[in-house]
């Protein structure tokens, strides 16, 4: 047996049972082997199951199928030697920094004196010396996450799990913390033997990880795996760095080979149930205008666009996809380019824009077209939203169905294709007098 292997995940699948229809698969057939000395990143869009995988490894979730072995033995519940850092920090507001850090040791029954000594060490290591008596609310976001790190490191874990640890921080703070963490790791001063982190930041993953698993959505699965062999500290302006980032953008935007229809999800013959992201029409219009204007003049490289607009992949990709769905722009190989309809949209005034948008919505979004048609057929021009929600939930999770409905409501309102009465939870036609 390979003694460096810490963690093995084999054929892992996570599905939620639903009463009316089939299981909803959030994670399908995931395999992962983690060795001592590695930093591995799980990269993907929200909803791709990467956080679910992290929680399975943490022992917080039990996978529906598959096997997770930690140091050779199957995992049943949170295991010794694994510690976790949370996106929201998960600090106890009523405990001081010192007490928060001691928590894990306390749970292990470590005597008080040793607990205090080790907590002080961890606090000093992570650069928070002097703040032992402070309460979390007195600290800035970056310092709070340092407390989160100290709390995880104080138990000297073999594996440190991090769930989007920097995404709640501002850009500058996040960068400092990343650098500090990598420095400690490179110098061998980090009391952990391997790191597994979830991220949706492509640059963050390339900056920190030795190996990146790129996740695809619906159902969540590992689509690509790539190694990053650049030495630490890595330079964002290094051309090799840029190539890797470009590659990953390409992977995330490549017209996905239609996922093998999952056995448990009934095929959707009507095309009604395409999951939609509720992106604001304001943002769509803004992006189209930016794309049409110099320096892009109708075609932009996504990484460049992302950094110019200060948008994360999680914000930019759904936006691009919505435009692609409406055939206002096209998304391919890490590029976004403007289509004819998009050009007309940018050139038009407010009212014609709405007409163009309505036209695109009716032609390319089956759900919107169906809602409008149903409303036209009803004598009172009202339809309960429940009807569509039920239909969507046969093909996707309730959360996705809700997001899809919110998207179609927002777009339908902007296009003045139909209205929505929140109180009654009904779609309706507004007065159509002016035509």
């Amino acid at each position, binding site marked *: 047996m390979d003694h460096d292997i810490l963690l093995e995940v084999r054929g892992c699948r996570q599905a939620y049972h639903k009463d009316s229809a089939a299981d909803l698969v959030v994670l399908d057939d995931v395999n992962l082997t983690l060795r001592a000395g590695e930093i591995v990143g799980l990269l993907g869009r929200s909803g791709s199951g990467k956080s679910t995988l992290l929680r399975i490894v943490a*022992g917080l979730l039990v996978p529906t199928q598959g096997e997770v072995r930690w140091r050779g033995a199957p995992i049943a519940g949170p295991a010794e030697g694994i510690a976790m850092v949370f996106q929201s920090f998960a600090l106890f507001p*009523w405990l001081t920094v010192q007490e928060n850090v001691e928590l894990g040791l306390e749970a292990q029954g470590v005597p008080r004196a040793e607990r205090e000594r080790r907590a002080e060490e961890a606090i000093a290591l992570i650069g928070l010396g002097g703040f032992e008596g402070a309460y979390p*609310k007195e600290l800035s976001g970056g310092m709070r996450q340092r407390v989160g790190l100290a709390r995880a490191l104080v138990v000297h874990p073999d594996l440190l799990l991090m769930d989007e640890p920097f995404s709640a921080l501002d850009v500058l703070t996040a960068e400092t913390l990343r650098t500090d963490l990598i420095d400690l790791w490179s110098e061998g001063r980090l009391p952990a033997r391997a790191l597994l982190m979830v991220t949706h930041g492509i640059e963050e993953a390339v900056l920190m990880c030795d190996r990146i698993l790129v996740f695809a959505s619906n159902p969540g699965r590992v689509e690509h795996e790539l190694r990053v062999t650049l030495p630490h500290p890595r330079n964002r302006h290094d051309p090799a760095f840029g190539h890797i980032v470009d590659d990953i953008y390409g992977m995330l935007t490549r017209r996905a080979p239609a996922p093998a229809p999952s056995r448990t999800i009934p095929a959707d013959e009507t095309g009604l149930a395409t999951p939609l992201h509720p992106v604001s029409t304001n943002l769509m219009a803004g992006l189209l205008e930016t794309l049409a204007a110099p320096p892009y003049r109708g075609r932009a490289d996504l990484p460049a666009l992302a950094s110019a607009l200060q948008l994360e992949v999680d914000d930019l990709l759904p936006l691009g996809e919505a435009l692609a769905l409406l055939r206002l722009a096209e998304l391919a190989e890490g590029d976004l380019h403007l289509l004819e309809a998009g050009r007309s949209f940018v050139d038009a005034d407010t009212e014609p824009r709405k007409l163009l948008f309505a036209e695109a919505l009716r032609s390319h979004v089956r759900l919107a077209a169906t809602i409008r048609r149903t409303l036209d057929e009803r004598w009172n021009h009202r339809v309960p939203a429940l009807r569509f929600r039920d239909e969507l939930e046969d093909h996707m999770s309730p959360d996705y169905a809700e997001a899809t409905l919110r998207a179609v409501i927002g777009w339908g309102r902007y296009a003045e294709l139909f209205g929505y009465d929140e109180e009654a939870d009904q779609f309706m036609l507004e007065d159509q007098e002016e035509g």
Partner: protein
Amino acid sequence: MFLPASAPARRTRRLPNQWDLAALLFVLGALAAFGHGAAGTLAPIDAPEATRLTLAAADLPYYALRTVMRMLAAMAASLLFTFAFATLAAKSRRAGAVLVPLLDILQSVPILGFLSFTIAFFMGLFPGQVLGLELAAIFAIFTSQAWNMAFAMYQSLTTLPQDLVEATRAYRLTAWQRFWRLEVPFAMPGLVWNMVLSMSGGWFFVVASEAITLGDATWRLPGIGSYVALALEQRDLGAIGLAVLAMGLVILAYDQLLFRPLVAWSGKFRFETTAGANAPDPWVLALLRRTRVLRRAAEALGTGLAAIGSLRLRLPALPLGLRFRLGLPRQGRSRIAMGRAGDLAFGLAVAALAGLAFWRLADYVAAAVSWGELGEVLLLALFTLLRVAAMIGLASIVWLPVGAWLGRRPALTRLAQPVIQFLAAFPANLLFPPFVVGIVHFGLSPEIWLSPLMVLGTQWYILFNVIAASAALPGDLAEAASTLRLSGWLWWRRVMWPAILPAYVTGAITASGGAWNAAIVAEVAAWGDTKLVASGLGAYIAQATEAGDFPRIALGVAVMVVFVVVINRLLWRPLAAFAARRATF
């Protein structure tokens, strides 16, 4: 961990300082007083001193002490109950499915109507001892305090922040450690606030439950309530004035010594991650923090308590069968299938039990009461409903504008809040005598003029909530309203009314619930030999209690519960849901 935040270990002398002296006298005095009071509860009931009361002013402090101790004992019991009940309801799906609606019903049970049953029960447990009576009184207060505390704790437990729960699991805290490290602290602010409310409500019941007539027997436990009852009998207005004064002092002391420090301390557990403006410490907490020896002792106690909380206790594993019946999470794959069958069995068992209880009750009541009387009781309930509705409406008309106006004036709000809090806590039944004297004197109709007594104590909840909501109107909205030059009726309809609606509904629910309860003591009033009765369900229950007529008490209480629950479901719930949906910021 249950102690005020202390600065990081300071190496100072451990000699007592002057603050210690003051605080120590305080603590010793309280201990001695409680010891003295406790001795009285262990006497046999026919001992001459045990239940004989005098109207001497010199005895009043002792009576006040006994009343306070009853209150404290009930609060301790409520706290224990809260921990056990809320934890079970939140952790076990099936227990929760029964316990939560049960709590809702229990909240609507008129405690005063219930008193006769509990006295019979506790007297049976401790025949011939004052302790039985004491326990019955304490139980009555407990039933007025426990439900909303348990509900607050249950709500906290069901809204625990997911990330903190995951952190306690990832760091492998045991259930016991999680309880003291996460669940109790998270629930603390809500729990303390509900303790304050419970305590305010409790004074009413402690006073009402001390002097009890059941059939031919009358018992008087030494306490302020009995003192007033005796004063009423002897038509002694001066003694009533003294009792009112004593009660006022007791409530003031409670507020200053216990609640302000407790509320200030519980702020530490408020779940917010931004530092807010800190109000100055109440003087008792400041005194405690300034003392040296006492603070040391408190810290040592705190460390000890924290050590208990951090014990790696695993809660005793329930036998598998019981775990299954309670619907606690289990390991295993066939969980869902077994869970369904279990749910069905559990549901059937609960339904069978409820059916049996209903049948027994119906049987018991039907033996003594005819169908015609049921109709009469329903009519009486309608009268009481009319009174409650009219009084809440009247109180709303008066207090809505006043509260909204006060809330917009911060200086006045600061002055008014403690006064209103005090008024809400003050047991209104002590204030009944002057009203009764007035009604007798002017020969007014009790049918109408006894009604205001029902909301005498509970109207303050409306005012209190409206002031708070009006004061909390966001500054930018108020500014937007004035730049748009909204005024008069439009301002009320578009700005103030939506802003205070949720709080008003909450206040009105509390007020009307309290009014139903108060009906039992307010629809019948006596001044010496003169007796005033207003026809209503409250009077029906009160008269049945006096006659020791258990079937009629049961019928009256059951009808009242049904009325309160139905009104809650049909009126208040939808209104509260609407307010929460439409009018929150």
